[in-house]
C-alpha cells in the first residue's frame, strides 16, 4: 500500500511530459501483450487451416478420380458417382471447402481435354458450384465480381453471358479485364465485339492475355478488323494491328498504311512492324521517303522492315546510312549491303580507317 501511494504521488508530481510518457508506456505494454497473444493465435490458426486444407485437398482429389472412373457404360450417373456428388455438394456449402474443391477441379481440368474435361464440367453443374459463381456477379465488391467472372470463364459457362456483359464498362479495370477474358475464352473471335464499345485503354498485359487465348485456336474465320483499326481508342488500334499480324490480314493493308501517319507513335511503330511482317513492299517505299522526319525508334523499325524486304534498288538508299549515328541502323544497313552487293561491301574495308567501323564490318562479314 505504501509503494502504491508512493507511485501515485510520484506520478502526480512529475512534469506533464513524464506523465504522458508513463501513460503511453502503459498503453504500449497492453498493446504489446495483445499483439503477442494475437500473433500466437494467428500462427496457430494459419497452421491449422493449412493442414485442414491439405486434408480436404486429398479427399477431393481422391473423390474426383473415383468419380471419373466409377461411371457406367451408359450415360447415367452410377450410384457411386451420385454419392460423390452429394459429398461434394455438401462441402460446397462452406466457402472454405468450396474454394478447395474448385481449385482441385481446375487443377485437373486445365491439363486435360476430351471426355474427362467434360465430366469435370458436368460435376461443376451437378454440385451446384455454378450457382455460387453466378450469384457473385451481382455482388457489391469489385473483387468478388471479378473472381466470379473468372471462375465462370474457367469452367466455360456460356449461360452466364448476360450477367457478365453488363460489366463491360465497369469502373474497375480488373473487372473489365475478367469480362474481356471471359468473352474471348468462350466465344473466341466473336467475343471481341466489346472492342467496338471500349472506351478505356487496353493495357499490354490485357492484350497479351487475349492474344494468347486466340492463338490457341487454329483455323478461325475472323471478321473484318478495319473498324477497329479506325477506332478512337488507340489501344484498340494497336490490338487490332496485332490481330492483323496473327491472322495475316493483308486485306487491311490500306488502312494499316494510313496508320503510318497516326498521331500516336506507338501506333505507328506497331503499324511498321505489321507491314513488315506482311511483306507490304509499298509501305517500304512510303517510309523511305519520310524517314528523316521520324523518331529514332521508328527509324530503327523501318530499317528492320527494309532488312526483311530489301531489293537491289535499295542500294543507293542504304548507302546513305552505313555511317549513321544510330548503331542499330548502321548495322542493318551494312548487313543489307553485304547481301545486295558483296563487292561494294568488302571494298568498304579499304575505304575507311575508322577502327570501330572496321570492327563492325569485319563482324558482319564473318557472321
Amino acid at each position, binding site marked *: 500500500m505504501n509503494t502504491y501511494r508512493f507511485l501515485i504521488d510520484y506520478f502526480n508530481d512529475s512534469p506533464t511530459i513524464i506523465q504522458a510518457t508513463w501513460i503511453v508506456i502503459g498503453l504500449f505494454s497492453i498493446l504489446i501483450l495483445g499483439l503477442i497473444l494475437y500473433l500466437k493465435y494467428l500462427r496457430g490458426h494459419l497452421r491449422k487451416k493449412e493442414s485442414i486444407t491439405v486434408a480436404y485437398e486429398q479427399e477431393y482429389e481422391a473423390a474426383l478420380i473415383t468419380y471419373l472412373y466409377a461411371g457406367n457404360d451408359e450415360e447415367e450417373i452410377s450410384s457411386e458417382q451420385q454419392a460423390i456428388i452429394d459429398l461434394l455438394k455438401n462441402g460446397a456449402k462452406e466457402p472454405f471447402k468450396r474454394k478447395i474443391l474448385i481449385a482441385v477441379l481446375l487443377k485437373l481440368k486445365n491439363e486435360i481435354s476430351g471426355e474427362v474435361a467434360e465430366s469435370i464440367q458436368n460435376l461443376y453443374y451437378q454440385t451446384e458450384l455454378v450457382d455460387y459463381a453466378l450469384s457473385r456477379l451481382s455482388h457489391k465488391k469489385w473483387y468478388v465480381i471479378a473472381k466470379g467472372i473468372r471462375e465462370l470463364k474457367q469452367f466455360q459457362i456460356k449461360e452466364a453471358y448476360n450477367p457478365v456483359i453488363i460489366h463491360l464498362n465497369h469502373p474497375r479495370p480488373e473487372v473489365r479485364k475478367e469480362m474481356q477474358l471471359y468473352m474471348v475464352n468462350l466465344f473466341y473471335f466473336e467475343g471481341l465485339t466489346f472492342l467496338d464499345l471500349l472506351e478505356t485503354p487496353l493495357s499490354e498485359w490485357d492484350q497479351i492475355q487475349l492474344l*494468347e487465348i486466340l492463338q490457341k485456336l487454329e483455323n478461325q474465320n475472323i471478321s473484318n478488323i478495319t473498324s477497329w483499326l479506325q477506332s478512337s481508342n488507340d489501344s484498340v488500334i494497336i490490338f487490332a494491328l496485332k490481330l492483323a499480324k496473327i491472322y495475316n490480314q493483308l486485306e487491311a493493308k490500306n488502312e494499316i498504311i494510313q496508320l503510318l501517319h497516326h498521331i500516336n507513335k506507338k501506333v505507328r511503330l506497331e503499324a511498321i512492324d505489321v507491314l513488315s511482317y506482311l511483306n507490304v513492299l509499298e509501305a517500304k517505299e512510303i517510309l523511305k521517303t519520310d524517314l528523316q522526319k521520324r523518331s529514332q525508334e521508328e527509324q530503327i523499325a523501318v530499317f528492320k522492315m527494309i532488312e526483311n524486304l530489301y531489293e537491289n534498288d535499295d542500294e543507293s538508299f542504304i548507302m546513305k546510312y552505313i555511317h549513321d549515328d544510330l548503331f542499330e541502323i548502321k548495322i542493318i544497313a551494312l548487313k543489307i549491303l553485304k547481301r545486295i552487293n558483296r563487292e561494294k561491301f568488302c571494298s568498304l574495308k579499304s575505304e575507311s580507317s575508322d577502327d570501330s567501323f572496321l570492327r563492325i564490318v569485319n563482324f558482319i562479314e564473318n557472321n
Partner: protein
Amino acid sequence: MGDPIIQNIIELFHYLFFIFSGSAIASYLVLAFISVIETVEYKRKNSYVNYKEIMSSDSAPSISIIAPAYTESLNIVENVRSLLSNHYVNYDVIIINDGSKDDSLEKLIEVYNLVQVDYLINEQIPTQPLRNGIYKSTNPAFEKLIIVDKENGGKADALNMGLNISNSEYVACIDVDCLLLEDSLQIMIKPFLETTDRKVIAAGGVIRIANSCVVKGGKLHDVNFPKKLIEQGQILEYIRAFLLGRMAWSRLNGLLVISGAFGLFDKKIAIKVGGYDRNTVGEDMELVVRMRAYMEEQNKIYKVAYIPDPLCWTEAPDNYKIFISQRNRWTRGTIETLRKHRKIGFNPKYRVLGLVSYPYWFFFERMAPVIEFVGILYFGILIAFNQVRWDYAFALIILAYLFTVFFSLIALITEELTYHQYKKKGTGIRLLQIAFLEPFVNHPFILYAARRGNFDYYFNKKKKWGEMTRKGMTKA
C-alpha cells in the same frame, strides 16, 4: 551553466532532438499505415491473376537477366542453372564474369558446353574491355545463356557491360547468388505492362533472407528460421522495411531504393541516363535516383513500381564482421547518392522525389545514425556532469524500447497475414524473442557501422566493396 545564451541554445537542441524523434516515430507509423493499405489492395488485385498465359507468350517483352559474378566459383554452376529454369519464355541470362581469378569460367564452360562466339557489342556505356570473350552454349537446352568474361571493373562496370550486350527491352539486374522463384519474371514485368497512364521505369522486389533455408536444385524447398540472432535480427529488419516501408513509398510514388539484389529496369532509360555509376558503392540506389531525376526533368509521368511478393532469396551476413562491413558500405552509398543528387533536395521541380523522398531519406536514413550517435555522446557528457535525471531517462528509454517492440510486432503480424513464410512450429516464439532482442543484438552494430561509414566516407577514400565470403545456402 550560467550563460543564458548557452542555456537557450542547449534548450533549442533539446527541442530539436525531441522534434526529430517525434517526427521519426510519426513517419514510421504513417508509412506503416499506408503500407498495410497498399498491401491489402495489391493482394486483392493479384490473388487470382493467372500468370501462366504470359509465361508461354512470345508476345511478352524480352528480358535479360544480368548477373555480375566475382569469384563465385563455389556455387556458380548451380546458380546459373537456377536462373535458366525460370518459367518466362522470352528471356536470356547474361552472366558477367568480372575478372575472377578463380576457375568460375572453366567450370561453366565444362558444364554448359560453352564455346567462344563472335559478338558485336554496342558500347553505349564505356566499360572495361573483354578478357576471354563471350561464350554461348552448343546445347539447345542452354540456349538462353550468355557468359561474358571481362577485365575486372567492379559491380557497376559489370552491370554496364550487361546493359551494352543485352538486346532485350528490359533488364533484371540481380546478384548471381540470388535464388529467383520460377515465376518472378512474370510477376515483376506485370506493372510495366498493365499501367496505361504512366511509364513504369523500374520495379523493385522484396529480398528475403535465405540463411538456413533448404535449396534443392535451385528451388526453394524449405523456409527455416535461422538460429543465429544476427541472422534473425536481419530477417526482422527486412520484414519491417519491406512490408511496412517500401509499399508505402511505392504508393506515394516516392520509392528511392530498389535493392541491388533484384530489380527490373527499362533498358533504354537506364542506358539513356548513363548506366550504373562506377564511382559509388551504392550504385543500385544511385541509378534509381538518377532515372527518377531524369524523368522529372523531362516532365514525364512515370512510376517506380514495387512488388511485395517474396521472389528473391539471398544470403545475409552471418557474422558481425561482414555485417558491419555491409552496413558501412550501405551508409557510404546513401551518403554518396544523396550528395551527388543534392540539387533534388527540397526542390519543388522534382515534386515528390524532391519534397518528400529526398528529405525523408536525408533526415531519417542518412542523418539518423549521426544524430543518434551525437545523442549518445551528449548523454555521456551529461552523465559525466551528473546532469541526468535518471528516473526520467529511464521512462523515456523504456518508451523508446517499447515503441520499437510494438512496431516489430506489427511487422510480424503483417507478415503472417500476408505471406506467412515462417510456418514451422516453434518459430513463433523465436520471432517474438528477436522482436524483443533486436534493439540489443543488431542495432548497436548498425549504429557502429554507420558511424564508421560516415568516418570512412569523409576520411578514408580507399575503401570499396569488401568481400563477402560465399558460404552457400544449405543444400540437401
